[in-house]
Every structure is written in structure tokens, then in C-alpha cells.
């Protein structure tokens, strides 16, 4: 109660305490008023507010005004056709039984199946694949089973597929509808007329669905890959098209060459993809650059930093994430900002060229590593005996000369070179921590060679 005071809540909580039937946890009394378990449940605290809105609970007071009795009475169900009379308990208020139909009768819905006359059959509904008896029987069953075609198909005497039954039913209904309509315009809006049942389409659809359902996991993965391919190809095509469009009215020579290359690149990608098993596409930097140039041309006005970023992305489009990280690490080692602080035309050009050169450098290193790994398979014995001797002597000499800057492992002494050959891939940056001085020193003005 004092909690309520503190909160400033109205005091209509008082009636709660008078109701004995209410669950004890709703009271504000201390532990002796409620059972020990409930007290423990509430965490030892009195609840601040009733958890149930008090007004919604059925008032006992109301039931005291009226006299409620329950009577065992007969009733009829309008949904039945046989006038069966059953008995059930009925809530009688003040001696007056409730009126109205059986409350569940309204749920007895059924479908309006068209009934055609024999005349109409002769005129509109004759079909080579169906006899009149079959058609009549079909319609009876449709009414009996509320258009549950699966059930009908199971019970139909001559074995017809669900699609055939549906087709017959809907085309008959449609024909009757059109025939009975005073004018064709009246029924044009009816769904049966607008979209007639198409059995072949239905068969296809169901077949496709069941195929998708029975896909193995591997097929699912393949599908995802193919879709990703298609998306990439269509985007490349779109970019090539965008590159072509502004060119058409202008016909500048330089632009023309670039877009030709882009179109060729885009087209050459697609036929190869469609023939071979889908594998990851490597975006062509030339076409990517062309599409960047085209999109910049569309913009007409842009910030040079933005243009530069786009060009950097396009140039690195064929590189994986790891390569891009290595490029950035190399730039940092060289003391170059990843994004130019003063993006003038000259700076951006130089920066872009530098990035391309670093990419070339990294790919050359990789090539060299692979070559050496191949070479090492020729040396079995001598290698194990002299772990300290680095196999390609020239490399070691080169590393000695240039202690200032070399990315990756080629600068890290003899012992490590041995390790490198044992695992095929270069150890990369992970070995850097052992010689921190080399990577941290800013190599700004070293024209070392």
C-alpha cells in the first residue's frame, strides 16, 4: 500500500483485498496473508500494480442481479437436412432460454457447383475425351466433395488425372457461364473467363515444384552459384551497355575503343560461362574501368576523391581480399596514404599507377614462390642436410642488398627461406612481427637502387 502511495496510484486497489477468491499474489499483504510459495515466486516483493486489469474480471456482483440456471434442452441444427433432434445443456437467464439457430450452423458452407441441363450439354459441352456420364458423375462428385479434386481423383471410376478432371470441370463451368450470360460483356470480368484453367501449365508447375522439393543439398548449392553468375553477367552487360549508350551520339574515337573492349569483355565472359561449369568469375579490370569512366561521364560533376576511389576499386576488381590487404600494407610501409590527402589530378594518377605496380609486384612474387616450390621438388637430399643454405643464392644476395624495403618473406634471412619451401604458400605478413624495425621504419625517401 505504501508503494502505491509513493507511486501516486489511485487507491482502487482496495476492493482487491476484499475478494477472497482472487489469487493471493494480487494482495498487498505481507507474507502471512499469502502462501509461502507464492511469496517466494514474487521474489519477496509486493507487486506494484495488479498484473490483470481488475475491471476485466467477471464481476460477481453482476451475477447476483440475474438468475442463471442450466437446462437440458433439445435443439435442431439448420445445417442438417434430416431434422434430427439432439439435446444439450443450455444457459438459461432469468427463465428465458436463448433464441436463434444452432451456433455452429453458420459454418456449414458449400461450393456452388453449376448444374447444366441436358440441352446445354448437347449444345456447348460435348467433348471427345469425355462421355456425358463421366461428366455428370464428375459434377456430382464435385458437389459431394466440395471441389476437393484430390479426393475426387482418388474415387473417380476411370483413371483421370487431377489436371484432367480440373480442366473438364473448369472448362464446362466456363462454357456454361458464357452461354448463360445475356451478353459477353457481362462475364468478361469473371475470373473463370479472364483466366481459364491451363492444364499443361499446371502440370509443368507441379513438376517444377516437386523437383525443387527433391533437390539435394549439392544441387541447391549449384543453383545458388549459377544464379550469382547470371547476376554478375547481367550486371557486366548492363555496364557495357551504359558505356555504349552515351557513345552512340558522340562517336569519339578514344571512347569508342574503350567501350568496344568493354563490350567484347562482357560478351566473351558469357559464352564461356554458359558452356562450362559455373566457377567464380574474375571481373576484368579493363571492363570495370570502362564502366567507371562511363558512370563518371553520366554524373557530369563529381569529386576527384570519389572518382579516384572508383578507379582504385575497378583496378583491383580481379584481386582477392587478401591481395588487396597486402597492397594496402605495402602502401603503408612505403609511407603512402591509403587515400590521398591532397587528391589533385597528378596525385591521383600517380597513386593509381603505384597501386597497379604493387599489384604487379605481388603477382611476380607469387610466381617466383611457385617456381621455387616447383624447383624444390627436384632437391630431395641436399636440402635436408643444409638447412641453413638458402637454395636460390641470388635471392639471398638481393635480399642483403636491399634491406630497406621488400614486402613479404624474401627479406627475412636464411632460416626462414627454408621454411617457406616446405609449405607451398608464402608465409606472408605473419612473419613480420619478428623483425618489427623493418616494417615500422618509414621508407619515404629511399631511392635505394
Amino acid at each position, binding site marked *: 500500500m505504501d508503494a502505491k502511495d509513493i507511486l501516486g496510484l489511485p487507491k482502487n486497489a482496495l476492493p482487491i483485498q476484499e475478494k477472497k477468491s482472487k489469487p493471493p499474489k494480487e494482495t498487498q499483504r505481507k507474507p502471512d496473508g499469502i502462501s509461502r510459495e507464492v511469496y517466494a515466486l514474487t521474489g519477496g516483493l509486493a507487486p506494484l500494480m495488479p498484473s490483470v486489469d481488475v475491471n476485466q474480471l467477471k464481476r460477481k456482483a453482476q451475477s447476483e442481479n440475474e438468475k442463471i440456471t442450466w437446462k437440458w434442452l433439445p435443439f435442431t441444427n439448420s445445417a442438417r437436412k434430416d431434422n434430427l433432434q439432439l439435446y444439450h445443456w443450455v444457459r438459461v437467464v432469468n427463465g428465458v432460454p436463448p433464441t436463434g439457430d444452432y451456433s455452429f450452423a453458420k459454418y456449414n458452407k458449400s461450393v456452388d457447383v453449376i448444374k447444366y441441363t441436358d440441352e446445354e450439354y448437347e449444345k456447348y459441352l460435348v467433348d471427345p475425351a469425355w462421355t456425358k456420364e463421366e461428366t455428370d458423375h464428375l459434377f456430382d462428385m464435385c458437389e459431394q466433395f466440395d471441389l476437393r479434386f484430390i479426393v475426387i481423383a482418388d474415387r473417380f471410376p476411370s483413371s483421370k488425372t487431377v489436371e484432367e478432371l480440373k480442366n473438364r470441370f473448369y472448362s464446362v463451368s466456363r462454357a456454361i457461364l458464357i452461354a448463360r450470360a445475356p451478353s459477353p460483356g457481362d462475364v468478361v470480368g469473371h475470373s473463370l473467363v479472364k483466366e481459364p484453367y491451363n492444364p499443361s501449365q499446371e502440370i509443368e508447375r507441379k513438376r517444377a515444384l516437386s523437383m525443387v522439393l527433391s533437390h539435394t543439398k549439392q544441387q541447391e548449392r549449384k543453383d545458388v552459384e549459377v544464379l550469382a553468375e547470371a547476376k554478375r553477367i547481367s550486371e557486366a552487360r548492363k555496364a557495357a551497355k551504359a558505356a555504349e549508350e552515351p557513345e552512340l551520339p558522340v562517336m569519339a574515337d578514344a571512347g569508342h575503343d574503350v567501350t568496344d573492349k568493354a563490350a567484347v569483355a562482357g560478351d566473351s565472359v558469357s559464352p564461356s560461362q554458359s558452356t562450362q561449369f559455373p566457377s567464380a568469375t574474375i571481373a576484368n579490370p579493363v571492363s570495370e574501368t570502362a564502366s567507371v569512366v562511363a558512370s563518371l561521364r553520366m554524373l557530369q560533376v563529381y569529386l576527384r576523391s570519389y572518382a579516384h576511389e572508383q578507379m582504385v576499386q575497378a583496378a583491383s576488381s580481379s584481386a582477392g581480399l587478401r591481395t588487396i590487404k597486402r597492397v594496402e600494407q605495402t602502401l603503408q610501409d612505403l609511407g*603512402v596514404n591509403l587515400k590521398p590527402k591532397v*587528391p589533385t589530378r597528378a596525385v591521383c594518377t600517380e597513386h593509381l599507377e603505384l597501386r597497379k605496380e604493387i599489384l604487379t609486384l605481388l603477382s611476380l612474387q607469387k610466381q617466383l614462390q611457385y617456381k621455387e616450390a616447383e624447383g624444390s621438388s627436384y632437391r630431395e637430399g641436399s636440402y635436408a642436410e643444409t638447412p641453413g643454405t638458402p637454395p636460390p643464392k641470388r635471392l639471398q644476395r638481393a635480399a642483403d642488398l636491399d634491406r630497406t624495403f621488400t614486402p613479404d618473406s624474401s627479406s627475412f634471412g636464411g632460416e626462414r627461406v627454408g621454411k617457406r619451401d616446405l609449405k607451398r604458400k608464402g608465409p606472408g605478413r605473419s612473419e613480420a612481427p619478428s623483425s618489427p624495425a623493418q616494417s615500422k621504419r618509414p621508407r619515404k625517401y629511399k631511392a635505394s637502387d
Partner: protein
Amino acid sequence: MLKSSDESEKKNLARKVKDSEIGVPIVYGNIAFWLGKKASEYQSHKWTVYVRGAGNEDLGVVIKRAVFQLHSSFNNPTRIVESPPFELSESGWGEFEIIITLHFHSDVTDNPLHLYHHLKLYPGDESGPMSTKKPVVVESYDEIVFLEPSEGFLSRVKNHPAVIVPRLPADIILPPVPMEDVDKRKRGDANDHPLSQWFDNFSEADELLILAGARQQVQAQIARLRRQLSLVDGQPPQLKAASDL
């Protein structure tokens, strides 16, 4: 007769110069002063966000108006500045992203350009305690590139200090354009701006130097690796003999 010559002249001015571009170097950012003892809880700093020419030149020659979109907690968060200097001063306590939209004159382009700047008021760890005398300054350098400018635009700006016009094709004859009001231009530039003492000087020379040095190193490495590769390619079996030495 006069009418038709006017129209043809307009058409000439609107003709685009192919394969050329105009660059306008700009610097944009903010300066923030701590108000010290005059600071209140909601107005602790007085700041100015601006766009200026990189050498403090008048940008009014290309920019028609600048729209600064502030945080929604400001009254009328969309502030329009119709003439140079394109800047906006306010007081407040919070840092947020400001979107600066530049609208250009009709002979330049109809497309607007957006700049994004994060307002900085507080100095951060490296700079020590706040002082009312020394403001917090954050500026970014960039260049607005206008592709295939119209002849009218080109002739209007070709001698303007704010604009970099590259060498034009020799056969271009640009129509004459009325002389610019030199005084008006001087009024618009930021050389005498009260805050100009805090402006950063962005020099491309430093960056170019670093880039040139880096490129040299990388090119040397590439040459070396190419040599090595050709050697490795030539003689795999002989390497065995070499390592036995």
C-alpha cells in the same frame, strides 16, 4: 534578326567541349571554438562549417548556392547560403555529420554535388585540454571535376584563380565574355577571412614526392623479380648444383 543571333549565340555557349574537364580545388571542413566560461550545457562551442577555394579563392564563380543540412535538433536544420563565403556558423555541443550540397550555376551543370563532413568540436586525446584561444580545425581537400564543360562556362572561368583549366585543344575558339568584376571577386575570396589564420595549407608537392619515391622502389623490385624469374625459369635442374656449392 537580333533575336536569332542571340539564340545562336546561346547555343554556341551551351556547346560542350569534348574530352576536357575543369577542376576546382576546394577545402571544406569546420573550425570550432570552445566558449570556455561562457559555455552553457547546450551551447559549449561556437563553430563554423564552410567550403572555400583551396587557395582561398572565390567559389562564387561556379557555386550558385550551398545548402548545409544540420542535425534535426537545430531549428531550421536546412540552411541555405546564396552567396560566398559559403559558410555557416552556429553554436552547440554535439558532433554530427553535416551534408553540404553544392548547387552550381546554370551554365555549369544542373546536377548538385554532395559533401559529407563530420563536425568536430572536441580535440581528442592528443591535443590536451580545450582552450578558448586555439580552435579545433578539421579540413578536407578535394577537387570538383566538371566534365565536358560548356563553352560559356569555360570562357567565363578560364582566367579565374579558383579554377584549373587544362590546356584546351588548339582549334577551340571561345566566344568573348564580359569582363568580370574584379572587386566582386575579391570580396568573395577568403584571403581576408577572419578565420584564415587557421586554414590548413594543402600542398600536393609533398604527396607527389612520396608517391614518386614509392613508385621508384616498387619498380626496382619488379625489375629484380623479373630477372630472378627469368633465371629460375631457365634452369631448374642446375639449381641443385648451385645449392651444393
